[in-house]
C-alpha cells in the first residue's frame, strides 16, 4: 500500500468522527473510575487535529508534517492526560517516518509502534496498570508479528484491533496503578479503563481507513 498525506488526512478525519460518535460512552466509562471527561478530551483533541491536518496542502507536506501538526494541535486543544500522551505518540510517529514522502506498509507499522512507545515513555505506565497501554502494547505487538509474517497492512491492523479489544477487556480485571483511578484500589475492578476503550476506537478508525 502507498500512503501519502491525503490518506493520513483521511485517517485523522476518521478518528475524529469515531471519537465524536463514542464520546458519551467514553465519558461514562471515565465517570465510573475517573472524572468523566475522557470522551470530551478525545473528541476535542481529535477534531482539532483533524481540522489542522485537513488544512495542510498535500503538495507541500509530507507524512511527518501531518503527524507533527496533529500532535501540536492535539496538545494545544487538550490538557488532561490524553493530551501529552497522544501528542507524544504522534510526534514519535512523525519522527519514525522522517524524510519519507510516501509510507509503505512497513513504515505504517513502524509509525504505529512509535505511537505506542511514545505513550509508554510519556506516561511511564506498565502493562497491567489499567491504562491505554494495556490496549496499545498488545495491539502493536500483534501488528508487528503480523507484518513479520508478511501480512499486508490491513491484516496487520485487524490483528492489532483484535489484540486491543482483548487488552481493553482485560483492564476490567485490573487494579489501576496510574491515572486518576489509581487511588480506588479494588473499587475499580469490573470496569474497563476509558483510555484503553478509546484506543480501541482509534485503532478501529485507522483500520477502516486503510482496509477500504
Amino acid at each position, binding site marked *: 500500500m502507498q500512503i501519502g498525506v491525503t490518506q493520513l488526512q483521511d485517517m485523522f478525519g476518521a478518528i475524529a468522527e469515531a471519537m465524536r460518535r463514542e464520546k458519551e460512552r467514553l*465519558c461514562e466509562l471515565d465517570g465510573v473510575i475517573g472524572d*468523566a*471527561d475522557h470522551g470530551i478530551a478525545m473528541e476535542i483533541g481529535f477534531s482539532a487535529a483533524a481540522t489542522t491536518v485537513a488544512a495542510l496542502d498535500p503538495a507541500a507536506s509530507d507524512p511527518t508534517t501531518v503527524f507533527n501538526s496533529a500532535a501540536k494541535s492535539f496538545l494545544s486543544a*487538550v*490538557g488532561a492526560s490524553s493530551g501529552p500522551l497522544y*501528542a*507524544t505518540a504522534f510526534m514519535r510517529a512523525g519522527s519514525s517516518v522522517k524524510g519519507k514522502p510516501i509510507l509503505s506498509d512497513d513504515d505504517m507499522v513502524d509509525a504505529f509502534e512509535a505511537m505506542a512507545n511514545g505513550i509508554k515513555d510519556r506516561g511511564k505506565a506498565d502493562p497491567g496498570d489499567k491504562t491505554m497501554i494495556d490496549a496499545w502494547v498488545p495491539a502493536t505487538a500483534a501488528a508487528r508479528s503480523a507484518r513479520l509474517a508478511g501480512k499486508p497492512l490491513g491484516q496487520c491492523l485487524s490483528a492489532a484491533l483484535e489484540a486491543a479489544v482483548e487488552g481493553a477487556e482485560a483492564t476490567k480485571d485490573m487494579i489501576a*496503578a496510574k491515572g486518576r483511578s489509581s*487511588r480506588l484500589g479494588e473499587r475499580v475492578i469490573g470496569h474497563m479503563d476509558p483510555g484503553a476503550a478509546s484506543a480501541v476506537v482509534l485503532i478501529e478508525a485507522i483500520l477502516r481507513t486503510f482496509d477500504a
Partner: protein
Amino acid sequence: MKKFMNAAETMVAESVEGFVRAHEEFVVFGADRQFVRRRHLVPGKAAIISGGGAGHEPMHVGFVGRGMLDAACVGHIFTSPTPGQILNAIEDVDTGAGCLLVVKNYDGDLMNFEMAAEMASSRHRIEMVIVSDDIETASTNDGRGRRGIAGTVIVERLLGAAAENGMALADLKTLAAGLASRVRSMGVALTGVTVPHTRRSTFSLGPEEIEMGVGIHGEPGRSREPFSNADTIVRHLSEVVFNEVAPVSDKALLFVNGLGGTPPAELYLAYNVAHRFMQGHGLQIARSLVGTYASSLDMQGLSISLALLRDEEFTLWDSPVATAALRWGC
C-alpha cells in the same frame, strides 16, 4: 444542576475574567489570556508557576502575587492546562533566576508540565516540584497514589515566601523536598459534584452516605461510609493525617479547607474538632488556616491538612503575602 453560569464552554473563561477584573491590584492576564500573572514581577527572583484544572478556585489564581506565585495556568474544569500555556507563562515570568513549576500529583498535570519543561529547557532553568500531600491509598503503598490536594496551598505559600526572600532555584527545590513528608491532607465529601460540560455527577451519595478520602476532582475516594456527626468524621480525618505525617516537630499548622459548598460556620466547627484532636495528641497548633482555598466545584465537603513545620518555615509562613486569597503583613 443550578449554577451561576452561562455555558459550560465559556464558564472558566468568564470566571477567570471576573477574577482578574476583581483583583487588578495584584494580577494581569498573560498574552492571549493563557495564564494569570503578577502585575509586578521582581527581576532576579526565582519565578514560581503553578496551575491545574479549573474548578479549584481560588487555587491557583488566587495565590498569584507578592510572596506566593508569579503565574498560574488554568485548564478546563478538572483538566490540566496545556504545555503551550505553561511554556508561555515561563517565557513571560522568568526574569533570569529560573523557574520552579509546582505541580499537583496527577498524571495529567505531571505530563503537561513535564512537556512544557522539556520545551522550555533550552532557554530556561526549570525545576519541578510535585505535591502529593494526600493520604496513602489502601491498595498501593508506594506513595504513587497520593494526589496533590489542599496541602498545595501550604507548599506554594512557603516556596513563594522563600523565593521572595531571594532563595535560589536549587534551594527552593530542596525546601520543597523537605516539606514533602511533613504536609498531609485528607478530604471527605458529603455530596458529589456535577462537572458542567459532562452534566453528570462523578459520584452520587445517598442522604446517609459520605465519601472518605476524596480528592478535588470529584473522583471517588477511599471508601463509602455512613454519614455521622462532625466529631466522628473530623476525628477520623485528623487521625489519618496525624498518623501519616512525618513526626519531625510538634509545632503544626492546621488547615481546614472547604471544598466549595461548605459554609464557614461548618468549617470552623470542624476546625474546633481537629484542633482538639491534635492538641490531645501532643501537637501545638501554632498557625491556622480555615476557609475555601482548594475547592472542588460546589462539593459539600472539606479536608484537613496538617503541616509540621520548622521555626524558619513558620517565619516564611508569616512573611508578607498579598494575593487575592491570602493576604497579611502588607
